[in-house]
């Protein structure tokens, strides 16, 4: 995760602990390498974090914030950061200015009449500190919650079920097909060339069947194309289909001698004279 690398690590790196409180003050009598101090100062996630740390360290009451000592200490840290030429976020200076302003307003004598809590110059800062403290707590809660990939892992089993997935083929309704045909003709504005009738369709279907039969056999005896079971109408349809196939030069009708059996065969390409213009 890129955050870890792009954001400075904010975990405190105290010099040590005294009664459970991290010591990150620069003790007067102890030399701290500038590098270490830098790490400490960089570990604050912002001015509110620093301010809250100073208050907590001295067990001060946020609500009755002693603004003078806090401001003084805050400035000491900011000066240290400047001294170490840390890339001091402007936010720290904004806070410094705010503290200075509150301090000066606290020093001004106020008429007793309008002295109430609402007008305490510290009120806004106190509110923000309380809310920030609550949020810090929320952040700790989040960090402590079990996290997927850190504490808990999603369980998976192998399956070959994907092999059972069937390709679902689109459905088509008959009416859709008829509509599509009408649309195709309408688009082409060729309606008058494509008269479709029931009779004609039977003929065209028979044409397909005859061609299909000729796929497997080179030649078919004429009588093979007629089925008596179909009755007179079937004979007519077959005959019309043969005529149409001949007309479209798709088949040849062959008779070797007079009175010999008539055969039909796939049209010889040399004799094919199909006219595209027939439509």
């Amino acid at each position: 995760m890129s955050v870890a690398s792009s954001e400075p690590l904010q975990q405190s790196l105290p010099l040590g602990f005294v009664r459970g409180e991290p010591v990150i003050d620069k003790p007067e009598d102890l030399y701290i390498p500038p590098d270490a101090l830098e790490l400490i100062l960089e570990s604050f996630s912002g001015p509110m974090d620093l301010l809250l740390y100073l208050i907590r360290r001295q067990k001060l009451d946020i609500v009755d914030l002693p603004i003078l000592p806090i401001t003084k200490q805050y400035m000491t840290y900011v000066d240290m950061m400047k001294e170490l030429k840390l890339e001091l976020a402007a936010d720290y200076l904004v806070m410094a200015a705010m503290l200075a302003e509150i301090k000066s307003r606290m020093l001004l004598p106020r008429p007793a009449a309008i002295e109430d809590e609402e007008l305490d110059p510290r009120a806004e800062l106190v509110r923000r500190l309380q809310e920030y403290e609550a949020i810090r707590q929320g952040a700790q809660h989040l960090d402590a919650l079990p996290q997927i990939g850190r504490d808990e892992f999603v369980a998976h089993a192998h399956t070959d079920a994907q092999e059972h997935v069937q390709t679902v083929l689109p459905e088509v309704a008959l009416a859709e097909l008829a509509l599509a045909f009408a649309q195709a003709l309408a688009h082409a504005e060729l309606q008058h060339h494509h008269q479709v009738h029931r009779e004609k369709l039977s003929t065209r279907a028979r044409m397909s069947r005859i061609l299909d039969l000729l796929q497997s056999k080179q030649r078919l005896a004429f009588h093979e194309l007629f089925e008596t079971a179909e009755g007179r109408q079937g004979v007519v349809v077959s005959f019309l289909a043969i005529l149409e196939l001949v007309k479209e030069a798709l088949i040849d009708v062959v008779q070797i001698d007079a009175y010999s059996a008539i055969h039909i065969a796939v049209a010889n390409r040399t004799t094919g004279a199909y006219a595209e213009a027939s439509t």
Partner: protein
Amino acid sequence: MQKHQLKQVIEALLFVAEQPLTESQLAEQVESQQITKKQIRDVLDELQRDYQERGVQLRKVASGYRFQTRAELGDIISNLWQEKPTKYSQALLETLALIAYRQPITRGDIEEIRGVSVSSQIMKTLQERGWIKVVGQREVPGRPQLYATTPEFLDYFSLQDLAELPDIPEPPSQVKDAGQSTQITAATATETE
């Protein structure tokens, strides 16, 4: 580590590992705990028994142990990945309609009527679906293939023969031939516009 916990660990590891795990790999994961291979094998045996009748089972495959779903559940489980049925494009429907109503017909004929080229994909789809087939070639230069519909096409639309295809509303300019339409009883509700 107690046996109870070892079993939990091995079970959890098998459920989160991307690949099957061998006994050695499992032993490695818990190595700091001084577990023998024998203990691991015992736990695996026990887990196999525990899951005998469950929806997932512990199976040994070539590269190790893994949990996998019961074979007989494949059909039902595959619903998870089942795609929603799609719809055919207008181009495909028109192509199919032209083949149905005007067969036998070449691709060139279809293109001429539709005024656009017919994609090979459409012809392939229709052939794979078993609805159309080549029934011959037209004996003109290039010998274009002639397409027709198949019995499967009729079956799909519950037709006995092509004559049962719905009649198409006739163009306004056409003079209706009363004698030819006497047999038509099916609804001819489709409209061109």
